[in-house]
């Protein structure tokens, strides 16, 4: 199960790599890479708690997308990986054109770029990432000393804004949806940049797999860079304390340090709260792209209402479809279902074709596969037709695969229906 969607992820990842390399901006390369890595750390935290692979997996991802623009691009990387699952449900709806759901179908291109929380494809990530970039992970570990911190905060406003503008440009180069999401994030930060707006670090003792040396390097850099502001001083003390804690803690623990903004309370509670809020708004943004028709909605309350409506409608659809299946089903044939399983999986654009040759499939199945000696009388089309059909050759392989798959995996098929001849052990 962990390897699920591996190939899909690989697909998207390659495209991601191509995009990122072509759009690399040499100016903000290092800076963005650092902020990228730090943001990767941020993302690492919550999802690795559920999947221990993640920590090792994320470093390579960070290194791979290091050339990409900034913090927002981490979202891109997530999105690319996670995509593999999303285009399918989204794109299929247009085919059947069912009722109100067609309106829910946003541009599949948008869906592809949906920034996806890595937790969704957690198994996929570990599989995909580990073979690819183990050497890179070590590089990343060394590089990720959060020097972005120094870069961001040295010059104060100008640096941060420069960072953001560069990142904004880079984001715009990359795809539009993600760019929009990242831009929103960047714009949100730019006004706050005057207050040392580097919120990439969050403190989360839930345990993550950022490298300890990386963190320690970051702390050293930070302590060197600290000057002046009270918030900074407090942050240093806080980080040193955290650092010592993390040093003693499990090596997999991920401490992301939050810098207090100028003019804001440096209370640890409010810092943690701010971190929480950032995470929540990040997820809200992600959900916003997931739920169709929510691009213009600003505000958590309205967004949540939309999400609730969407989930309710999906659940109602499931109920409706199960009712429909209950009424439609009785004549169903087993071999038909086996065929259909493959068709269902493949049926994004090909459903029309599938439907067109449905009867043909029924007729060809018993003869091409030879597995079903008899046919259920419920399906009249199967019996009388003996001549081989033109699409038979194409279907044969599919049918055999499906049947093998089906029979291998279905022990409950031993006695099915009225046809005693149907056996699963073929």
């Amino acid at each position: 199960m962990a390897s699920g969607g591996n190939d899909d992820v690989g697909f998207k990842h390659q495209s991601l790599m191509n995009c990122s390399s072509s759009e690399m901006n040499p100016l903000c390369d290092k800076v963005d890479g650092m902020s990228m890595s730090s943001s990767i750390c941020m993302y690492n935290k919550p999802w690795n708690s559920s999947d221990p692979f993640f920590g090792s997996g994320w470093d390579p991802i960070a290194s791979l997308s290091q050339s990409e623009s900034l913090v927002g691009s981490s979202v891109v990387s997530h999105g690319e990986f996670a995509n593999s699952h999303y285009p399918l449900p989204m794109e299929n709806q247009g085919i059947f054109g069912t009722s109100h759901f067609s309106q829910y179908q946003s541009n599949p291109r948008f869906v592809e770029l949906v920034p996806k929380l890595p937790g969704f494809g957690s198994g996929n990530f570990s599989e995909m990432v580990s073979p690819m970039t183990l050497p890179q992970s070590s590089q990343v570990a060394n590089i990720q000393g959060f020097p972005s911190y120094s870069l961001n905060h040295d010059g104060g406003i100008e640096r941060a804004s420069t960072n953001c503008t560069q990142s904004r440009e880079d984001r715009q180069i990359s795809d539009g949806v993600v760019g929009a999401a990242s831009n929103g994030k960047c714009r949100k930060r730019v006004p706050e940049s005057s207050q040392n707006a580097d919120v990439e670090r969050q403190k989360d003792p839930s345990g993550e797999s950022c490298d300890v040396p990386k963190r320690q390097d970051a702390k050293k850099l930070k302590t060197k860079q600290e000057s002046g502001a009270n918030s900074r001083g407090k942050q240093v003390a806080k980080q040193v304390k955290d650092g010592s804690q993390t040093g003693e803690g499990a090596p997999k623990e991920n401490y992301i340090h939050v810098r207090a903004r100028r003019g804001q309370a440096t209370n640890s509670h409010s810092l943690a709260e701010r971190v929480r809020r950032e995470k929540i708004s990040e997820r809200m943004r992600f959900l916003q792209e997931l739920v169709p028709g929510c691009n213009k909605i600003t505000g958590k309350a309205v967004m949540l209402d939309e999400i609730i409506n969407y989930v309710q409608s999906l659940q109602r659809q499931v109920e409706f479809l199960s009712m429909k299946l209950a009424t439609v089903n009785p004549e169903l044939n087993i071999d038909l279902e086996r065929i259909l399983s493959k068709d269902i999986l493949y049926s994004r654009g090909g459903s029309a074709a599938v439907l067109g040759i449905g009867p043909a499939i029924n007729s060809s199945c018993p003869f091409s596969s030879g597995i079903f000696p008899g046919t259920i009388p419920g399906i009249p089309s199967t019996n009388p037709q003996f001549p081989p059909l033109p699409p038979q050759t194409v279907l044969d392989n599919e049918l055999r695969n499906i049947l093998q798959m089906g029979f291998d995996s279905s022990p409950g098929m031993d006695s099915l229906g009225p046809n005693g001849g149907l056996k699963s052990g073929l």
Partner: protein
Amino acid sequence: MDLQNLNPSSLKSRFTARFLRALTEINAPKTISSSSPREIFQRYRRIKVAADKSMAYSVRSRRIWSRATLWRLRTRSRSRRLVSFGRRASVKTRTTASHGKENKEHHGAVLGVQAEELRELVPGGEAMDLCNLLDETAHYIKCLTTQVQVMRTIANLYSIE
């Protein structure tokens, strides 16, 4: 995009295989269409449970909502045999209560009403803080769309016959 479906262990494939298997088991005893509403209703319920169960099994309890769904289904089946008195969601939420609500009081009040509604919708959502709840919601939405899409395909293909 079709190529992406080829992965035999994607969520969609897993769910489809399981669901079809369940469907055949449900439909197996009845070869003749039974038009009595009661039987149809019974079949509807079984199919719905099968759909939820196959989706939850396809997710393999990697998610809180899938674990909660499986728990709920098991508890329900158990409680049906013994005349249940108080099978409540409280039993289910004990398993997920570890997340705690340490941060909820800070900003939970802002979105309290909708968060509560969302908690009711997403299985297992009662004991999650908002952050994880949103996580679970996103994954749940993804799985629901997969489920809807597969079931719609099946229904369409069946109705062709």
